[in-house]
């Protein structure tokens, strides 16, 4: 007996795997592909069998099945309908049975409002011409970094000395996802795609594998509270350095990479013993104030001879505008705002689902505050956390972002089905795992092609929308909130977002 249901540990399954017995040819592809021990083959009975309780709904089996015999569906709630309690029964049971707080991954999955879907874009009609991006030039080039108050130009060119800038061909970058959380092949694919598309990928807090130094010129390196893998070569290889103060999925708490995921290469990259838990403290223990942050920013600037812009990443929390103002004044060149829908490799469920602010609101208030204080030009703003499509990018830029980070969207492009099991290290799609056999499931050749396709398509979509608005440069869209109208929002929300209601 391989497994039997036991009332003592019973939580109703979230998914039911249905197998059409006529279509099933017993090829056992699904059995080999299931990394969560949900699928078995019984030789004696000649039957492929599923333990629904183990199924996480990753759909790997359904995707690989050559005869489409498998359908994975959500298990219908079996309890008597109760609006207050139905969604909480399983969570209560899990805590009571296993005596621990559930750890989850990916972003907040609760039905909070999505402001992107309450904003509509403008288009040109009669009074001004729209532009066809296939016939006319269209500019997406973006520079991130501190801009001067004014510039002076002579016949020899620009006289003003500019602060270091990041040059992006497309205002979309790959968000910080560490080697450790993601497999080697995924990092490889992100790096190749960033190089090809003239943008950047972020190393995340786990350091940088020596093999990936080849992506120099397209890497943003991160310095987080654990300082894993931070050394001179690491800082040198980055085009910019990002100080991670917080992460949208888990504001106020540090990271935790379980010891099982700390393999030989991870331990070498992170500069820590093999098999030991990689714990990032909740705060940076040398940053307890804006003044301390300034010291860290300038320490990093000194270490890199003032040649690289320094970014500071914060999770969006209640006083985000004031915090951003402090960061700008502390000397940061780029502020990264991470909304509460941002993803993670592991986070306590209560934190992920209840802490933070929406990126749309935070972006609007930060941009507005910095403008009011006359310091907007000192920093570039990067929006991240819940950017799902190219129109979110356009709306974010219209709200005041200089560029965006995509994390979850990039992973979905290479196979992720958002089953929220990153923290288990058993990712059936080979993305969030260090298992050498599972991680083969991402072929960097295929994955990088898909990422490049995604960015190319998004770039075209952004150009099309800009063309419709009669704008031929992304610079003209930046902070251009007149091109946004709110629908289904109350007066206060419209005021905070700084946009007019539809019809006005």
């Amino acid at each position, binding site marked *: 007996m391989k497994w039997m249901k036991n009332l003592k540990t019973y939580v109703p399954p979230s998914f039911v795997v249905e197998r059409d017995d006529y279509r099933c040819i017993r*090829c056992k592809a699904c059995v080999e592909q299931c990394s969560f021990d949900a699928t078995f083959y019984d030789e004696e009975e000649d039957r492929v069998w599923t333990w629904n309780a183990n199924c996480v709904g990753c759909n790997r089996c359904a995707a690989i099945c050559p005869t489409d015999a498998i359908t994975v569906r959500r298990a219908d709630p079996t309890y008597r309908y109760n609006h207050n309690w139905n969604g909480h029964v399983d969570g209560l049971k899990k805590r009571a049975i296993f005596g621990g707080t559930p750890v989850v991954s990916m972003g907040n999955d609760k039905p909070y409002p999505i402001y992107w879907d309450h904003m509509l874009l403008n288009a040109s009609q009669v009074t001004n011409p729209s532009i066809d991006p296939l016939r006319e030039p269209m500019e997406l080039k973006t520079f991130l970094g501190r801009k001067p108050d004014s510039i002076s130009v002579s016949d020899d060119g620009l006289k003003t000395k500019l602060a270091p800038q990041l040059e992006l061909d497309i205002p979309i970058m790959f968000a910080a996802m560490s080697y450790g959380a993601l497999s080697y092949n995924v990092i490889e694919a992100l790096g190749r795609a960033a190089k090809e598309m003239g943008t950047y990928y972020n190393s995340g807090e786990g350091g940088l594998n020596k093999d990936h130094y080849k992506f120099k010129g397209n890497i943003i390196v991160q310095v987080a509270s654990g300082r894993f893998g931070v050394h001179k070569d690491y800082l040198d290889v980055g085009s910019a350095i990002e100080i991670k103060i917080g992460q949208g999925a888990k504001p106020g708490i540090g990271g935790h990479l379980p010891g099982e995921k700390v393999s030989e290469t991870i331990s070498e990259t992170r500069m820590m013993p093999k098999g030991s838990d990689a714990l990032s403290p909740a705060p940076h223990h040398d940053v307890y104030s804006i003044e301390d942050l300034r010291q860290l920013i300038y320490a990093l600037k000194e270490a890199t001879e003032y040649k690289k812009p320094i970014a500071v990443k914060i999770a969006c929390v209640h006083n985000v505008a004031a915090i951003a103002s402090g960061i700008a004044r502390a000397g940061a060149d780029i502020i990264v705002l991470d909304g509460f829908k941002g993803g993670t490799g592991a986070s306590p469920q209560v934190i992920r689902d209840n802490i933070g602010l929406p990126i749309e609101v935070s972006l609007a208030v930060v941009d507005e505050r910095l403008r009011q204080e006359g310091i907007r030009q000192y920093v570039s703003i990067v929006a991240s956390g819940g950017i799902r499509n190219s129109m979110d990018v356009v709306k974010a830029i219209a709200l005041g972002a200089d560029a965006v980070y995509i994390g979850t969207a990039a992973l979905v492009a290479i196979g992720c089905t958002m089953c929220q099991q990153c923290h288990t290290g058993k990712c059936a799609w080979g993305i969030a795992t260090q298992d050498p*056999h599972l991680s083969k*499931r991402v072929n960097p050749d295929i994955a990088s092609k898909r990422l490049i396709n995604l960015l190319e398509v998004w770039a075209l979509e952004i150009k099309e929308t800009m063309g419709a608005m009669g704008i031929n440069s992304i610079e003209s869209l930046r902070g251009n909130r007149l091109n946004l109208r709110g629908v289904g929002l109350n007066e206060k929300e419209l005021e905070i977002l700084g946009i007019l209601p539809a019809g006005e």
Partner: protein
Amino acid sequence: MKIVKIREDNCIFCHLCEVACIVEHSQSKDIIKAFKREERPIARCTVEFNYPVSLSVMCRHCDDAPCIEACQNGSMHRDERGYVVVNPETCVGCWMCIMACPYGVIKRDTRREKWGLSTKCDLCPDRVIPACVEACPNEALTFEEL
């Protein structure tokens, strides 16, 4: 001459190359019928596994093919495409080719009435791209010039 290149770094041990091979060499070329109704042919490729390594192995169509040397009546021969194939009409099932093959990719099909039959990859003469290559979801098998 194109052959199937094996990239073990990408093999995910799904066995779909074997499934595709069986379907391609079946009477109906219909996946359900091939597996459930008809006499199922033998897969010409085999997925080997020793954690974490896995790879699909099939005939390498060697230049100096030892199986052709070993065959006593010329059943194992090189066809007009340059690939090593077996003539099922004349094969007597002596299995000398199996003894000679350095890769262990020739299989025994013992279901014939009179004598057995050597079964091996024929690189799908009816197709432009072999079935296993087309079925591989991770480009672990590619059909490329040597």
